[in-house]
């Protein structure tokens, strides 16, 4: 009889850890052929338009960066939280909280000098997202409420808070749609390149990657946050105040997600609408995993995802394959990456008895 076992393997060298995500992406792209073929798309034509749509022209390439910005923020948010084993599945709600606060500041803080408004808007968004994330962190540390469930449920609470405000106090006067007034000019992100939507939020996302990298590698808090994630009991006995570490981790994580919302509001929509996020918070989970919870990994997997999201629009238009293939590919990417990660630690053994 033959039985299959999964057994520990020797640790892989460093270069393999970089090659693995790349291999996972290649395998995902190959597997994407299945839904493309089922949808009746011609294989090479579909792949061509997928990449042409994302990278083929200056405008498309810049659009890919525009899409990457919120994904980098939510990906960092999730990765930073997961590293401390704070299961923040609530980046979507935190993003909305950030957008909500930024809307409020961007409409009503007309009294502050112009150059100060944008920083205020961004800080409001960061704090709103961070505070919204600190609710499940407090529930987890003080009352032992499962963070997966509480962060998920709070997403729906935030969606409805936003809905109530958009039909209530924040609704544009005279409008019957659930949307706010436009934020004032000084609250908008500056556009950095002509004839495109390449805005301030894109370099900010790259800077955020560097900041999180710095926190992770060079600060005591970054070390403590990781220690809590590896073994919370050991961290506690080692003298780390685990409660405040988790709280601060949640605050930063939620704040990053909040900044994704600020960017979408202040650079893309200019007014709050219900559909301000097409699920960036959930994509952030996949991106964080695909990036192996490493900030630079998050950066590259966000770019990969925005290629898929932007490219899928062109592919859909040119080949008739439904646009939702982008989400199918995202889901497949996560599962492929999981399997690949497993085989960095384990290998399959076939036993004959």
């Amino acid at each position, binding site marked *: 009889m033959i039985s299959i076992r999964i057994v520990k393997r020797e640790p892989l060298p460093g270069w393999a850890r970089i090659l693995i995500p790349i291999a996972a992406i290649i395998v995902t792209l190959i597997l994407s052929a299945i839904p493309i073929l089922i949808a009746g798309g011609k294989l090479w034509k579909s792949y061509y338009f997928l990449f042409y749509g994302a990278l083929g022209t200056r405008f498309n390439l810049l659009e890919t960066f525009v899409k990457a910005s919120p994904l980098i923020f939510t990906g960092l948010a999730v990765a930073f939280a997961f590293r401390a084993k704070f299961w923040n599945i609530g980046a979507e709600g935190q993003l909305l909280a950030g957008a909500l606060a930024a809307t409020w500041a961007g409409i009503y803080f007309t009294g502050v000098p112009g150059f100060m408004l944008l920083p205020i808007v961004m800080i409001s968004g960061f704090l709103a997202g961070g505070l919204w994330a600190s609710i499940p962190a407090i529930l987890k540390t003080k009352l032992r*409420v499962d963070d997966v469930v509480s962060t998920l*449920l709070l997403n729906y609470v935030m969606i*409805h808070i936003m809905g109530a405000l958009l039909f209530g106090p924040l609704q544009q006067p005279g409008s019957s749609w659930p949307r706010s007034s436009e934020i004032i000019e000084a609250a908008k992100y500056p556009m950095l390149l002509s004839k495109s939507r390449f805005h301030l939020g894109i370099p900010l996302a790259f800077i955020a990657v560097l900041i999180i990298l710095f926190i992770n590698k060079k600060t005591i808090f970054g070390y403590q946050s990781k220690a809590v994630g590896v073994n919370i009991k050991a961290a506690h006995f080692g003298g780390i105040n685990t409660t405040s570490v988790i709280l601060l981790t949640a605050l930063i994580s939620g704040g990053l997600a909040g900044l994704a919302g600020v960017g979408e509001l202040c650079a893309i929509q200019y007014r709050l609408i219900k559909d301000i996020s097409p699920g960036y918070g959930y994509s952030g*989970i996949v991106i964080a995993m695909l990036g192996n919870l490493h900030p630079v990994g998050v950066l590259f997997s966000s770019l990969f995802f925005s290629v898929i999201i932007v490219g899928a629009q062109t592919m859909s238009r040119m080949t008739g394959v439904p646009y939702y293939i982008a989400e199918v590919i995202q889901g497949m990417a996560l599962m492929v990456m999981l399997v690949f990660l497993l085989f960095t630690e384990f290998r399959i053994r076939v036993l004959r008895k």
Partner: protein
Amino acid sequence: MIGEILNIAFITGLIGATMRMATPIIFATIGEILVERSGVLNLGIEGIMLMGAMTGFLVTFISGSLWVGVLAAALVGMILALLMAFLSVFLGLSQHVSGLGITLFSSGLAMFIYRLHFGSPVIPPIVQPFTQVAIPLLSKIPVIGPGLFDQYMLTYIALLLIPLISIILYKTKIGLKIRTVGENPLAADTVGVNVNLTRTLCLVAGGALMGTGGAFLTLAHQNMFLIDVIGGRGWVSIAMVIFGNWDPLKGALGAIIFGFLDGLQLRLQGLGFRVAFDIFLMIPYLLTIVVLVGVSRKASVPAGLLKPYRREEKGG
């Protein structure tokens, strides 16, 4: 105003709406309890329900038979659960992440297949949905009769599942095996229970229930498929498992309380109350969190939950 709320027609209607809104949550909660008692947390639930909702609708639309649609939804739930089993049981990957992966993948897949078949119609296609079946005599009981006993067949099935799964879990040998695998997989293995097979079978059975719960939403509660048809009901079910302390009866009770709040919100809207719609929609989620705060401290989580089981194996 008070008179409008307290009249008998309103109460009867509210009982009916409660049971309707509770049905998908009961299916999903009981399915998840079965899975978690064997030691696996299935966060794929939200996506599996969406795939169930889409598949049930699509197959009914094509075949013209509602029950074929329900069966297809259950089958799709089982297939996705098998995928979950491959990742989290066979490969032993993180249950959190595998489950979320299943949800993301299934959500995308559901929309993809729907668009593939229907394109982007201006008016969403509809099916002739299930109709209520009145139970003779019982449905004639004043006030509660029409609410409780003039319901959809799937609602009756959901209610029957509560004692059925309770009996299986607590009174049968199979149930004992499941619970042992969930509490102490090593001990179960020692006495010859196949841990990973038991977990896989529980996942598959649970997946069927989750898929069916999703199908209820597109084939009975509504007659069309919309992208937000599940709207977090899978996550609510996960919360109900904790609320019910991993017991089918208590979990179903939680589902009915959620159904009551959801039904109340619907009925009050129906009466044209000028209350902010979204605030009402928020209440069930908010109360679920409040309830979790109350029960989480004394929760008795299955000891083997979240832990993949691998037999100790020497390298050579």
